[in-house]
């Protein structure tokens, strides 16, 4: 009964005309961003954050969430038509989607990607509604040691799932923790690592760091090469997949959805890993594995449903535990904080309208996406033709104005440019940005909970091992971190790394 009551609350918020408008703007821009290579959902959400300052927290978060799951929809269009993924989670869709397009079956590929995304997105919201309330209730029992251990586990999962070297991911994670300590010490208000700059008293801003690493860094990297894009020239017709296509894809859709949802919950899991694992699973279980890579529709249905389900699942740790699982969710958490709301176990009780409003808006957003995606494919193809020489100055301009609008600080522009160069160099030297961002967000919470735990235990680390939940989290983290040393697991991880680098 409670669930229906909460759903009613949610829909009463989500169906307000202004929130419907924000939801529409969010999913529209999300799809557009997903279509455009060179700017991902993190960059787009950072750029649009200032636009939400005048709105209510509900409208702001509905729009930002819409950008996230909308980008997952849009990413498939470029993968299928241009063989260039709009965002990382659509990399594997290129393998079979583009082949289908070359064979004149771009329509069914695009249609299956859209329907698969819709089905998976809807299931993920249902899962979110069922899992989030009991998890939030359970999380109320957590004390500082449990929170500390959970964050250690979260970072360990992210590092384990890093695309390249785990050592390098650990190093960037440590850098993120240190960046999070800049400013006033949360316990005794002593200044740390500010080097006499007043601007750093409140710490390094999340938005300049994210925009720098993922916006400016990406542009600098792309400027080194000429981006050449050629869309498939055959006319796209018959977007609805045939009965045979549905039969061939039904299990891929179901498996991709379930797998994506659970991988989305894991910190660091997200859409990228979900789509790769789904593709590998479908190829393994298929009666015709030789068709994969040559235009198998299950190779589109599985990964596309997996990355959308993962986008829904990723909201669970944020809304129930206050822990972001990837860079996009971290930015969403930043938006919560900017609007004076702390995500976590108390969110559901303190702001039920916001909590359920955001969740139910995803239902509406998914329906909007299905309606948007199919008839608007022609427009997305036109968008794809915008040359990079026009696109990159727009991205840079929006980054600059976006950062300045948030803080009115020229210092933050320098921070963003600095992190842009860092992001560029990190890509060159094969270091990942995601562990840095996650550790940067979790770092202050991790430090406070570590220090509080040690104060509680009078300096004994046994507090982390004597409390059962904390001990389980730490044990899991330890297993993850040492598992690559076990030859069989290490080899499997290497294979996944090579696969995910083939973009």
């Amino acid at each position, binding site marked *: 009964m409670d669930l229906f009551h909460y759903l009613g609350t949610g829909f009463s918020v989500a169906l307000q005309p202004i929130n419907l408008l924000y939801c529409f703007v969010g999913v529209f821009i999300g799809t557009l961003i997903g279509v455009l290579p060179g700017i991902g959902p993190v960059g787009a959400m950072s750029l649009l954050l200032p636009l939400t300052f*005048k709105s209510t927290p509900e409208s702001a978060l509905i729009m930002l969430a819409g950008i996230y799951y909308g980008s997952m929809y849009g990413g498939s269009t470029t993968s299928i038509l241009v063989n260039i993924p709009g965002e990382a989670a659509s990399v594997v869709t290129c393998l079979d989607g583009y082949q289908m397009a070359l064979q004149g079956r771009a329509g069914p590929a695009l249609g299956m990607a859209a329907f698969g995304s819709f089905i998976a997105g809807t299931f993920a919201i249902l899962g979110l509604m069922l899992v989030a309330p009991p998890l939030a209730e359970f999380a109320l029992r957590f004390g500082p040691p449990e929170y500390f251990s959970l964050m250690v586990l979260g970072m360990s999962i992210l590092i384990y799932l890093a695309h390249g070297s785990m*050592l390098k991911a650990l*190093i960037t994670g440590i850098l993120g923790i240190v960046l999070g300590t800049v400013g006033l010490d949360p316990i005794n208000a002593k200044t*740390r690592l500010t080097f006499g700059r007043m601007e750093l008293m409140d710490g390094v801003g999340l938005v300049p760091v994210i925009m720098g690493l993922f916006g400016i860094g990406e542009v600098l990297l792309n*400027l*080194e*090469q000429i981006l050449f894009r050629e869309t498939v020239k055959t006319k796209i017709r018959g977007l609805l997949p045939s009965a045979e296509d549905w039969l061939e894809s039904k299990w891929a859709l179901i498996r991709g959805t379930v797998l994506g949802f659970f991988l989305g919950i894991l910190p660091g899991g997200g859409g990228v890993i979900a789509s790769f694992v789904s593709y590998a699973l479908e190829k393994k279980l298929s009666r015709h594995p030789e068709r994969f890579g040559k235009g198998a529709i299950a190779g589109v249905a599985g990964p596309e449903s997996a990355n959308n389900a993962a986008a829904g699942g990723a909201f669970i740790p944020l809304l129930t535990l206050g822990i972001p699982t990837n860079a996009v969710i971290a930015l969403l958490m930043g938006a919560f904080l900017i609007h004076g709301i702390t995500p976590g176990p108390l969110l559901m009780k303190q702001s039920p309208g916001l909590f359920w409003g955001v969740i139910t808006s995803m239902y509406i957003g998914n329906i909007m996406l299905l309606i948007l995606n199919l008839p608007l494919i022609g427009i997305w193809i036109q968008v794809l033709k915008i040359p990079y020489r026009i696109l990159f100055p727009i991205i840079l301009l929006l980054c600059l104005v976006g950062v300045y609008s948030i803080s009115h600080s020229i210092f933050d522009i320098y921070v963003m440019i600095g992190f842009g160069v860092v992001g560029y160099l990190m890509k060159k030297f094969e*270091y990942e940005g995601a562990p840095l961002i996650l550790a940067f967000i979790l770092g202050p919470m991790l430090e406070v909970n570590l220090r509080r735990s*040690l104060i509680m235990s009078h300096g004994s680390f046994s507090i982390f091992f004597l409390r059962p939940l904390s001990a389980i989290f730490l044990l899991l983290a330890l297993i993850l971190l040492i598992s690559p040393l076990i030859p069989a697991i290490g080899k499997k991880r290497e294979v996944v790394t090579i696969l995910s680098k083939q973009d």
Partner: protein
Amino acid sequence: MKHPDLISSLFWIVLALCLIIWGYALELGTLSEPESGFIIFWAGIIMLGLSGAVFIMALREKDKRLERSRQRFGASWRNVIWVTIALALYAYLLSPLGFLVDTFLLLFFLFRVYEPRKWPTTIWVSALMVIVTYLVFDVWLGSQLPKGLLDLSWR
């Protein structure tokens, strides 16, 4: 050319040493009452260990990897350097020149640096983008972008 991991690990080693010194200077406290430098100091120690491991592994790596890294650094650097300098100059001149003038100059440069088009096209496209951005962010959202030169001329 040196192995890229050698260069990057050396950078991390230096940073780790700095963190150890900074953390120590901020006071470590005791285990029962950790002070402000505690986490920074230990982060430095762990980073030192990890970057040391990357350094040693890079020393042991074979030629194949080195060959790949050569290719990776073979691309053109010029655009990247020019755009970075332009962005830094933009930030430096934003207050004195103001948003409109400074942004127009930046956009004009950016449109010229990568596959340039004709001058008149570059000028009107830059001007149009500046005006649209100004209307959205300053007029509509009230972001109060710096006025700079234009503010002085109006007084």
